[in-house]
């Protein structure tokens, strides 16, 4: 059987040796190279043509995410498996955007690491449990841009903005709104200009119309 060739990219020697010690006895996996930063990973990938690159995210100079993009651009058949200690969605979504096929937390067990490498080598995706959990949470989070359930055409207004808009629609002046809500006239103006900017509205009259059309009166 053909061995799966891998390159390990991590700026920490200890982490690289840790991973190597996990994988060195595996008969179907061959570690063909190590890279100590993003630039190195790009060069090693080009030269050694591995099947899978185990990629750390934060590395000096070229980050793991940038290196992923560069490797995928020059050689799309190389699969990138992100190994990270960050579980923030930004890191995960942006590495996926740049072409990574899998994400693992560094708290990984030997079995899972091997499963992930084999899955990627077979051209499929792999995400550790905590990562997929986080991704789904983010997709369902109603405050999140990644949300798939929310149609994003409705612009979010805060409680206070709704109150100000309601009073504008009722024809109150800034001064009157300030008195009614016990806020300063300056704050009323701040809300008003924010509303206009958010809703792409240029005049107070148009704000009032927006309030009526959206049942905020």
């Amino acid at each position, binding site marked *: 059987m053909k061995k799966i060739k891998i390159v390990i990219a991590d700026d920490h020697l*200890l982490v690289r040796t840790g*991973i190597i010690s996990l994988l060195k006895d595996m008969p179907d996996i061959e570690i063909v190279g190590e890279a100590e930063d993003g630039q190195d990973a790009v060069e090693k990938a080009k030269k050694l043509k591995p099947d899978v690159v185990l990629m750390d995210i934060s590395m000096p100079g070229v980050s793991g995410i940038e290196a992923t993009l560069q490797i995928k651009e020059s050689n799309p058949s190389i699969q990138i498996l992100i190994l990270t200690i960050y579980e*923030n969605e930004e*890191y995960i979504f942006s590495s996926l955007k740049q072409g990574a096929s899998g994400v693992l937390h560094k708290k990984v067990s030997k079995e899972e690491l091997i499963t992930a490498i084999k899955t990627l080598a077979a051209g499929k995706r792999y995400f550790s449990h905590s990562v997929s959990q986080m991704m789904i949470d983010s997709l369902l989070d109603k405050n999140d841009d990644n949300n798939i359930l929310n149609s994003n055409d409705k612009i979010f207004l805060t409680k206070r903005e709704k109150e100000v808009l309601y009073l504008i629609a009722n024809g109150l002046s800034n001064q009157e709104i300030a008195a009614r809500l016990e806020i300063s006239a300056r704050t009323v103006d701040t809300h008003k200009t*924010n509303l206009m900017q958010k809703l792409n509205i240029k005049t107070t009259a148009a704000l009032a119309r927006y309030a009526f059309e959206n049942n905020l009166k």
Partner: protein
Amino acid sequence: MFLLKLIFSLNNPVIIAILISLSLLGVIYVFYVHIIIPLNQKLAKEKENLELNNARMMALFARLNPEPLLRFNIDGTIILANEASNKLFEGLQIKNTNILSIFTSLKEFDIKDLIESQKTIKFSLEIKNKYYEVIAIGIRDMQFGQIYCNDFTQRKKIEDELTLSQKRLRELSYKTQKLQEEEKQKIARELHDSIGQTLTSIRLNLEVLKEGLDGNKEKLSKINDIYSLIDNATTEIREISHKLKPRILDDFGLIPSLKALCNDTSKISGIHGTFESFKLNGRLNTELETSLYRIAQEALNNIVKYSSAKEFSLQLVKHPGFLRLMIEDDGVGFDIEKIRHDPTKKDCMGLINMSERTLALNGNFNIDSRIGGGTEIIVEIPLEE
């Protein structure tokens, strides 16, 4: 004859009446010439004396005034200059010159109108390294105007020193903050990269060790204990490092960082929070991103600690020429004046920090709060387009 005699006789009542009238007129004439006329003359002289005295007194007051004082008539000609003003304008011909040639700031005003409408004009003047507050007052009844020059050099010096020391303090606080940020970032990176990665590699090596146990249950449970110890340490280090300086701020900028901050704060505190950004794309400069993040962090800290709010919202709205960060909550609010005047209060430091950070970016910091009615914090930073 008899008739004539009869007419001019003293027995004729008409004659008697005429004689009485004539003597009355005589008496009146004598009274007028000898009593009324001299009396009038005396009064006029007294009045003249009084006015003269009055003028002398006023002149004396003017002369005695230790501050420079000038008097000018309706044409603008200086009719009086006291000793102090002569000294002030030493070497200049003051008396009988036009006021405008000395006080050029008055050129934009009509001197006649100044006197007729009794106006007061104030401006400042620098002469021989001294600063004067000049006041010109028109006095209609006297048909002249007066100019007072109050020396406020001392006050100005103190004011200038105060402004300078405020500026220095601000620079110092700015530098301290910057150093602190750099220091925090350094420690955060050290913790995360060095200790964090060491823990990771320990964990990976432990995986290898686990293999050689061949199902020894006792040793396996020991190793599992070590796993959880390592995991706890890793989590703690990640949290400390994140609190010091969130890595996501460096790597992805303000919007993802604020989103994460908002979500974390909501999760930990149970207060429902939202974050939205409008019309802002891409990265801002590092300093601006760090400062706005810290301001938001401080504001959310306060909300969690003091506000008892049910909801908060964090908004970043890009306007033409400036960026506005707005943090609102529906909590208990507070009396801004009270906190401002009591800097011993701990939460006051937070407000000062936020406002200092805003000022360092040439921005506007504004806070609006009322007891029982929530709080709005508004930060506006100018942006180059």
